[in-house]
């Protein structure tokens, strides 16, 4: 018997800083000119791993950040490390951040960006891994990938995306992968 393998999840609530953010009837979240967007209650015991699609445009180019979140509170301690891989023209580079209070979460640009990410085990009381593939319009087209880890063995039910510069407009959707 076939089953749906990828389930669109609805946040129990959202919080934001900006003009607006709305949960659609099916569960995705549309937002306008937000610098901070938090999704609560999207990770649960029903699924181990998740896919998040986040696309839109920012008011400027930016490396946004994410934080895992439990019961409405972001995890801000220095437990995140990000390994980045970027390609722009003939320059291919990698950089790893020192442990700090957030992970890098792709790249946003003024024309169009599309970020596909995977959260591995955020609701499990184990360390979490996040992998992200990004396309954005910096320099015409810019490839920016992140692999990040969060070392705490805590259970998280959501996450926050924060712009370090500007504010973003678009849509984010969280999908649970049936296990």
């Amino acid at each position, binding site marked *: 018997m076939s089953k*749906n393998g990828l389930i669109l999840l609805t946040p129990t609530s959202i919080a934001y800083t900006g003009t607006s953010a709305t949960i659609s009837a*099916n569960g995705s979240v549309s937002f306008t000119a937000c610098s901070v967007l938090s999704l609560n209650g999207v990770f649960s015991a029903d699924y181990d791993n998740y896919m998040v699609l986040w696309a839109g445009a920012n008011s400027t180019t930016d490396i946004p950040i994410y934080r895992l979140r439990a019961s409405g509170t972001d995890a801000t301690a220095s437990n995140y490390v990000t390994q980045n891989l970027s390609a722009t023209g003939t320059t291919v580079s990698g950089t790893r951040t020192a442990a700090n209070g957030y992970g890098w979460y792709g790249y946003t640009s003024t024309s169009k960006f599309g970020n596909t990410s995977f959260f591995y085990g955020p609701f499990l009381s184990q360390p979490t891994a996040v992998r992200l593939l990004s396309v954005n319009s910096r320099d015409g087209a810019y490839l920016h990938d992140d692999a990040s880890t969060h070392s705490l063995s805590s259970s998280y039910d959501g996450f926050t995306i924060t712009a370090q510069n500007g504010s973003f407009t678009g849509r984010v959707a969280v999908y649970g992968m049936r296990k």
Partner: protein
Amino acid sequence: MTNGLVVMTPTTVDKTGGSSTATINADGSVTFGSCETLSLNGVFTSDYDNYMIVMRLTSSAAGDILFRLRASGTDDATSSSYVNQFLRVDGSSVSGFRFSTQAFYPGEDLVTQRTGRTIYVFGPYLAQPTALRSVTSLDRSSANIEDVAATHNQSTAYDGFTIDPASTTNTTGLLTVFGFNQ
């Protein structure tokens, strides 16, 4: 419980190539053979913003494969409207390059073994610029990574796309288009 990933069945397919074939399967996937071009119409709609295309293919000769967005049966080949940023990993060689042209280049295809490719398409049916991201495994030097981030700068709504092996090459394989429910 809302299904997150929906198979998009083309309304029609078009193809070129003397002995080419293309069939829309009952599950919505498209099986194709010896196509010099293959076009899927009516796979992008206002129901979904973002899409995933999964394909396996082999080609009659090694070379680039082109991808053009398409509206009402006509490809958009506007000069320099697609910007392609490549990332190629071949053994210990890691390289990048960028070019602007009249098509998205999601990566090369080779002859001897299968190419596997996933393409994420962000907002093709929205009257906004479109972003595309491809992830490819191919058999150059037996195994290669070839990833591409691309943008298309036209604020037009597209309902389909064409894949076009460059020159006289033809391609054979299977692809499926999925819409991300939202």
